[in-house]
């Protein structure tokens, strides 16, 4: 399909929100809270970050003010995972009947529009699609995913923790979106170059006050090149699955265990980690709710067996499970790596453990 690029003026961002709201969608996008950029329900463009950039390094994340751009930061602690695979979700509610119980399923959530999804976020969604829409379909993920509208954003800068090019997931958004925005600020003004990625995107774009892009037409490519030039970190993906599976007895697991505090931050910030547990809650009126919550392979109870205790009782074994699953056995299970190179686990590790450095050392060992 022929996709002429168009321009959305910065002052018309509100129309984008209003048009999405008119379709009955909740708009989910970036906003600044507690010193970080998080994804939450937004009312309009005023909720977006303004003139905020991030600085990230192993164990470090800081925001500072600079300029007037809305999207000139990398990724914060949350991914859009929390909106498609919520951290807490009621699976069903049961009420007592004369001899048994009756089950009531949760209501379907309203359709969502994601605003500001970057290439790594889209790659993570494609990975979670394989997890939740495989031979067994998770109806909760499926209903949120099916009705999704995605407004992507082209990265024009990268954090020091980013390594998407080596995972083949970025920085350029090239598929899996409805509309994409590339932010341009210069003497001619503040505007977005709009690319159309789907029929739904085309239909929505028709309702927006867009005008033809003339000199800005190559802005998306320029932004991606600028971001990519800033990325030095590289995951050694070549033969990594085999190398990691061969390093099962490496002493490096004990070494990383001496630094890892088993806090589970990496799994919670990871946009593809999908593990959950269930909690059973009975209220005073006798109603029972079964609630699904994010869980982590770093918790000792995760592998608990009656009579035997945790299968993975040492931190080293739990780190090995996480890293080996993410970078090796994920391929066996889902035909892809479980890593998109967003760097969140590096920045949000309180001990500054760097998945790339650990993978490098283990790969050398093998």
């Amino acid at each position, binding site marked *: 399909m022929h996709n002429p690029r168009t321009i959305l003026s910065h002052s018309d961002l509100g129309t984008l929100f209003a048009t999405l709201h008119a379709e009955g969608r909740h708009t989910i996008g970036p906003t600044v809270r507690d010193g970080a950029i998080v994804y939450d329900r937004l009312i309009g463009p005023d909720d977006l970050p303004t003139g905020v950039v991030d600085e990230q390094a192993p164990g470090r994340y800081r925001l500072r003010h600079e300029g007037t751009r809305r999207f000139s930061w990398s990724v914060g602690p949350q991914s859009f995972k929390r909106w498609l695979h919520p951290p807490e979700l009621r699976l069903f509610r049961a009420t007592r009947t004369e*001899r*048994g119980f009756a089950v009531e399923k949760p209501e379907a959530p309203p359709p969502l529009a994601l605003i500001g999804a970057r290439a790594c976020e889209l790659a993570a969604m494609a990975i979670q699609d394989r997890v939740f829409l495989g031979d067994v379909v998770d109806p909760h993920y499926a209903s949120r995913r099916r009705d999704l509208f995605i407004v992507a954003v082209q990265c024009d800068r990268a954090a020091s923790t980013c390594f998407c090019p080596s995972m083949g997931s970025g920085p350029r958004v090239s598929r899996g979106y409805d509309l994409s925005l590339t932010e341009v600020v210069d003497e001619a003004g503040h505007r977005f170059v709009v690319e159309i990625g789907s029929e739904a995107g085309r239909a929505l774009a028709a309702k927006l006050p867009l005008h033809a892009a003339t000199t800005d037409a190559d802005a998306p490519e320029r932004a991606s090149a600028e971001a990519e030039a800033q990325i030095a970190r590289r995951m050694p993906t070549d033969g990594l699955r085999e190398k990691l599976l061969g390093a099962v007895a490496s002493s490096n697991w004990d070494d990383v265990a001496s630094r890892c505090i088993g806090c589970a931050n990496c799994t919670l910030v990871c946009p593809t980690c999908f593990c959950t547990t269930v909690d059973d809650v009975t209220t005073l009126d006798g109603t029972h709710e079964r609630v699904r919550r994010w869980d982590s392979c770093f918790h000792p109870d995760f592998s608990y067996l009656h009579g035997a205790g945790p299968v993975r009782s040492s931190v080293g074994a739990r780190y090995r499970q996480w890293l080996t699953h993410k970078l090796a056995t994920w391929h066996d*299970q889902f035909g892809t790596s479980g890593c998109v190179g967003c760097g969140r686990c590096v920045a949000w590790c309180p001990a500054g453990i760097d998945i790339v450095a650990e993978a490098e050392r283990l790969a050398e060992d093998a």
Partner: protein
Amino acid sequence: MNDPWVPTPMTVREVVRETADTVTLTLDTSASPFAFAPGQFNMVYLFGQGEVPISISGHADRPDELVHTIRGVGPVTRPMLDLVPGDVLGIRGPFGTAWPVEEARGTDVIVVAGGIGLAPLRPMIYHLLANRRDYARIVLIYGARQPDQMLFVDELHHWRGRFDLTVEVTVDQGTEDWFGPVGVVTRSLARARFDADDATVVTCGPEVMMRFVVHEAVRMGVPQDRIWASMERNMKCAIGLCGHCQWGPDFVCKQGPVYRWDHIAHRFAEKEL
């Protein structure tokens, strides 16, 4: 859409007390026949308490009933000891892989069970006996911690009275009124008479027991690809979505619980995998 997270209510028809902490529950599935293969398991939900993975211990040829043998050891299973006919449980399933009833045809079949591990093997035994002509010798070796912790005692007596199978029962710890063998199942296995070249070994019990059973069977000459073991892992969903039961590349709820030994021997040797 069919929701794989939501259990189907089923009514308890019969309760048999096996031991002080174990019951066998028969659920009525006559309204909606329940098909499964020996070795598979269900997620069993008790209202207000939670859900646990429990293997099916009944006869696969009887779709009008579903039988679970449950040891009450945790917050969900302990209250299940007090269920009475007419009570209702929630069921999701069946899940997982099955015992090799086809692959074992024509061979000697050696069933080695430890403790509650006899429950998932009972559907296999039922199948062997229901199709007795399809198999050569049948040997059942069962070890319990103590005589009063033995499951299916009446049935064990009945099976032992048959001329077409050998039943060896042993306990780890004898009591005053126990005159049977005392010792581990591997000793009974070493003494059992069967054609190791043409035998199928199926085992379920604690991992340490299965490790020694397999070691002994291999020593006796049973090929590794003729040995099957049932693995236990923490499970929250049984549909490959919660991640808890991962073991190397596998979700034990899907690729297991019943495994052919040559497929898992290398993994079984790794600690804390």
